[in-house]
């Protein structure tokens, strides 16, 4: 379009045009588009040109001010965007632009009522908000150097009292709030950290003690197992244990490190051997204590360590040495705890613990821990034995009931089958099922097979929101209930697949239309092979007759009456023909058959023609009636005629406008200016045409009303 040519021109300097003209062209194109932003290529081009020389800056100021004076908000808006781009970049531009700042404000903010912003209004609003944003920004950036900007900003803010977006202050406030929040959390964390420092040693000892006990339990179990002779790589294990026992008296850290190594090894070995420890009479006490310890571990120690960790990770400290050491310790303890727990799980101790404390992993404060995947499979074994047994009993009871009544509902069928698997032999059950009718579920099933009556009104609610007397003795008799619960079913046609026409198409493939008898494109539907060739079975007669016979009853019902007639007619004829054919074979049969078919076709054709004639006549009648009604309605409303005329005028008008619009489409800016039909306009138009029909309806109702009043003078 123009843009490309302009860009090209701007690119080639040796065009004979001056810079100023080039710049003018580019700015004109850039500000003359219906888009909400300036084209990036054009913007870059303008920036490059303006940057080129001071002369160009001067030219740009003049040109942009000129564009800003255009009586179109869109042009002004785009100019404003350009001005901002240049204003923030070039000092000379600012120096030249600032003396005209008042004019600029007048044209872009439009703070004076006698210099209102030009249409279109949506762009004008955009222009105003944007320019205010820019003025604020400029005031922040350059207000100190340019008094005019400061003055303008202050005037708009303090005297005109425009609401500036106040971006800087907002950002500052948000920043301050955030820092305040951070500070508060840090304070809290510091407090927690202090407390942690105080009680860390004690708690650590506690935790380690628990772990030690558990480890001892594990070793006892190991020992048992070894005695049983299942595994015998024990040297490592015993060494570790030895180590541990040796150094028990030493300081905590060292001991705990060894201990960590040992337990990790133990874990590794436990993974290695697949055989599970079995709880027996002998080691029941060990298992019990282990269970206790595990409970303590998951309920107390693991959450504790996790909390410590989150505190240590989030707290912000100047001196990091002690903090780092502590963090390391905590991580190690945590790993140990998890490994111990894993070992317990491997011993089959998990379910009980998890049931007691399923929320062990919940209080993690949004920090990822690599625990995962325990809860799902741990719940399943617990669930099965508890839930199945009562269900089964229940189902059994229900099944008995249903057998007594000799009927089964859809709903209970499933559970019944489940339960009767055990009660009845398979074949007998299958037979019964085949016999049983299917019923859809309904409220009638509540009172299924009830002998006694039902109390009539126990709640005292007579009608809606009206209370009456309660008589507990009144019963609704059973036969009455049965009458009330009379079920009604609706006929549902059996769905049968309709054959496709499958006549070969000219472009290849087969016709996929599915019609009952006749494809509107390919005529009668006949059986065809996979290529679409009609299959001529041994006798045309047999085929047709069988087809006519095979028309299912429901199809016959839905088919049109004439079709029905014709088919039945054909039926008769064909039956006759059939008999002949049985007697004398040969050509006579064929001739007769043909004759019959032509007869049928002719009859059908005449029927069709008659129908068309009738339909046409009815349509004419209807048109006439409508015209008469319309005329009557028009006569009643005084504006009727005008409306008609107006409508005509308007429609022609709109045609013209459409023509114009197509002319103006390329402009873009003018289309912005044109008033778009609002929803209100459209509704009004609709109502105006609707008024004619409304008048008729009103007249009719009025007549009806008057007759009604005459016949029932006392009522409304």
């Amino acid at each position, binding site marked *: 379009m123009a843009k490309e040519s302009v860009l090209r021109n701007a690119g080639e300097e040796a065009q004979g045009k001056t810079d100023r003209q080039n710049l003018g062209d580019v700015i004109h194109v850039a500000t003359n588009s219906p888009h909400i932003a300036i084209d990036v290529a054009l913007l870059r081009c303008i920036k490059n040109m303006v940057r080129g020389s001071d002369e160009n800056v001067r030219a740009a100021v003049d040109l942009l001010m000129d564009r800003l004076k255009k009586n179109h908000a869109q042009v002004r808006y785009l100019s404003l965007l350009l001005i901002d781009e240049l204003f923030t970049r*070039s000092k000379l531009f600012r120096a030249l632009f600032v003396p005209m700042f*008042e004019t600029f404000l007048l044209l872009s903010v439009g703070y004076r009522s006698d210099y209102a912003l030009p249409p279109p209004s949506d762009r004008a609003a955009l222009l105003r908000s944007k320019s205010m944003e820019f003025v604020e920004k400029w005031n922040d950036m350059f207000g100190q150097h340019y008094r005019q900007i400061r*003055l303008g900003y202050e005037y708009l803010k303090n005297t005109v009292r425009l609401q500036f977006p106040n971006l800087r202050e907002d950002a500052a406030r948000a920043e301050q709030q955030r820092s305040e929040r951070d500070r508060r959390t840090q304070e809290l964390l510091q407090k927690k950290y202090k407390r942690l420092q105080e009680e860390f040693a004690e708690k650590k000892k506690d935790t380690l003690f628990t772990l030690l006990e558990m480890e001892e339990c594990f070793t006892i179990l190991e020992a048992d197992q070894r005695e049983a002779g299942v595994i015998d790589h024990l040297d490592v294990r015993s060494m570790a244990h030895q180590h541990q026992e040796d150094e028990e008296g030493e300081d905590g850290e060292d001991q705990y490190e060894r201990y960590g190594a040992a337990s990790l090894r133990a874990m590794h070995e436990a993974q290695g051997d697949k055989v599970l420890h079995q709880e027996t009479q002998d080691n029941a006490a060990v298992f019990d204590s282990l269970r206790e310890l595990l409970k303590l571990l998951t309920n107390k120690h693991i959450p504790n360590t996790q909390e410590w960790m989150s505190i240590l990770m989030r707290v912000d400290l100047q001196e990091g040495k002690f903090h780092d050491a502590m963090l390391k310790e905590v991580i190690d303890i945590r790993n140990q705890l998890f490994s111990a727990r894993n070992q317990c799980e491997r011993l089959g101790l998990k379910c009980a613990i998890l049931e007691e404390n399923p929320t062990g992993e919940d209080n993690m404060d949004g920090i990822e821990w690599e625990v995962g995947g325990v809860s799902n499979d741990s719940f399943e074994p617990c669930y099965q034995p508890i839930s199945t047994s009562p269900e089964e009993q229940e189902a059994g009871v229900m099944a008995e009931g249903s057998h007594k009544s000799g009927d089964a509902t859809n709903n209970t069928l499933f559970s019944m089958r489940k339960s009767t698997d055990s009660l009845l032999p398979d074949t007998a059950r299958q037979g019964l099922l085949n016999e049983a009718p299917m019923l859809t579920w309904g409220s009638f099933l509540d009172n299924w097979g009830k002998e006694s009556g039902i109390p009539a009104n126990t709640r005292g609610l007579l009608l809606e929101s009206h209370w009456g007397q309660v008589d507990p003795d009144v019963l609704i008799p059973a036969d009455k209930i049965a009458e009330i619960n009379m079920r009604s079913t609706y006929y549902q046609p059996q769905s049968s697949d309709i054959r496709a026409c499958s006549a070969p198409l000219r472009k290849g493939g087969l016709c996929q239309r599915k019609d009952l008898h006749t494809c509107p494109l390919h005529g009668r539907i006949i059986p065809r092979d996979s290529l679409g060739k009609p299959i001529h079975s041994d006798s045309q007669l047999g085929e047709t007759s069988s087809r006519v016979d095979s028309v299912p009853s429901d199809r016959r019902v839905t088919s049109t009456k004439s079709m029905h007639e014709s088919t039945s007619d054909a039926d008769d004829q064909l039956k006759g023909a059939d008999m002949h054919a049985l007697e004398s074979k040969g050509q006579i049969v064929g001739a007769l058959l043909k004759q019959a078919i032509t007869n049928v076709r002719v009859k059908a054709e005449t029927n069709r023609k008659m129908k068309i004639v009738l339909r046409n006549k009815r349509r004419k009648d209807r048109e006439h009636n409508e015209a008469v009604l319309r005329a009557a309605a028009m006569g009643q409303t005084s504006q009727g005629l005008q409306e008609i005329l107006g409508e005509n005028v308007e429609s022609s008008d709109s045609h013209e406008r459409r023509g114009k619009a197509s002319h103006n489409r390329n402009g873009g800016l003018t289309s912005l200016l044109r008033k778009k039909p609002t929803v209100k306009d459209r509704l009004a138009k609709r109502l105006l045409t609707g008024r004619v029909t409304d008048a008729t309806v009103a007249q009719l109702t009025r007549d009806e009303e008057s007759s009604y009043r005459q016949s029932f003078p006392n009522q409304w």
Partner: protein
Amino acid sequence: MWRELRQREAGSIRPSLLAKHACYRRSRSLQLAKRKEIVSAHKSGVNSLQIDAAESRYLLAGASDGSIAIYDTQQATHFDPSSQIAKHEALSTIDRRTNEGHEYAVSSVHWYPIDTGLFVSGSFDRYVKIWDSNLLQVELQFKMPGKVYAVAMSAVASAHMLIATGTEDVRVHLCDMASGAFTHTLSGHRDGVWALQWSASSEWVLVTGGCEGAIRFWDIRRAGCFLVLDQHRTQIGQRSKSASFIHDQAGTSNGMNHMETNSERGSSFLRKRTAHHTSIRRPEAAKLSRQHPGLTVAQGVATAHYGSVTSLQTTYDGFYLFSAGLDSRVRLWDMESGCNTLINYGTTRIAGKKGLQLSFSPDGSLLFVPSDTIIQAYDVWTGNLHATLKGHYDLVNCCSFHPLDQELYSGSNDRQILVWAPPGGTSEDLDPQTQVQADEDNWSD
């Protein structure tokens, strides 16, 4: 500049000429002052500004919210080192909350011509009040029959202390500060009086401009007005005789006059007054008194403007009178002959419902006319537009030229008092490095 200084050193030009040239150049290069700001203490439009005659230091401002403030134009109250801006805040403020403060808009303020211990304010609440500027107390007050539009005191008076007040009323009242009573009532106008000016040459001559468009000259020692200016009685430009006189005076006594210290001023006033009064004023009055009574009637209906006269301003030497009217015209009158000099000042837009203040540079070369939101600087004798000062965002009401600093102060309805100064700053010479840092080209691409 440097060349002239050297010439003066060498004695090839006279010192006064150097001063005159400097003043001339400076007053012709006015622009919005970058490093001097007056922080307006007013919450509404500024109606009246005056720099005191004694020291040329204190600026008195009256505003539409009834507040009056005094600013120091020399000494900044606050200096912002980062932006190098000197801020002049109000030294003292009187507003509605002050005891006996004006209730409605202050339309006009005036320093006591001898010193800065007193000032006079006239307000739309019908009072003219005389304030002690140190105690900020009302010393005297006069109740007027209507809104007060203008107050004026004679700068050259030595025999009286009269305040002339222009009000809604058709009569001009003269209030005597010494006795606290009305001494005169001058009736002759057919409508309210928006503009008043004492003659700069005679302490007895008062010029008033009314809403009916008439400008009347009064000799307060006599009954009735002795001259009504008629816009159709014209002469072309300066009279040849006075032109040379003016030129001389601009070069010597006038330029000197305002560069001189305060003590010397009284004597120069005295000299001028005696000279003018004896030689010029006398025959004029005598001539008028011999006129046929019918002529005075004919004179009585003459108009100077086709609308209200919004402002009057005599030149410092008292020979000429500027007037502006709602017909958006500025006229220069020869006070001697009472003729319109027919100098065509360009298009102005004078609007508003009250008086304006014109101002002109003391060397008599530039006239500043508030015109809508801008101030136009006209060359006095050619009427050419010299400069347009843009900066206000609303109607400009008044402007006042500082005779020593060549600065212009202007007050407007946008509540600001702007300082227009020659570039380069007046007192502070600042290191330009700081400014350049933030304000420079920033081409990112």
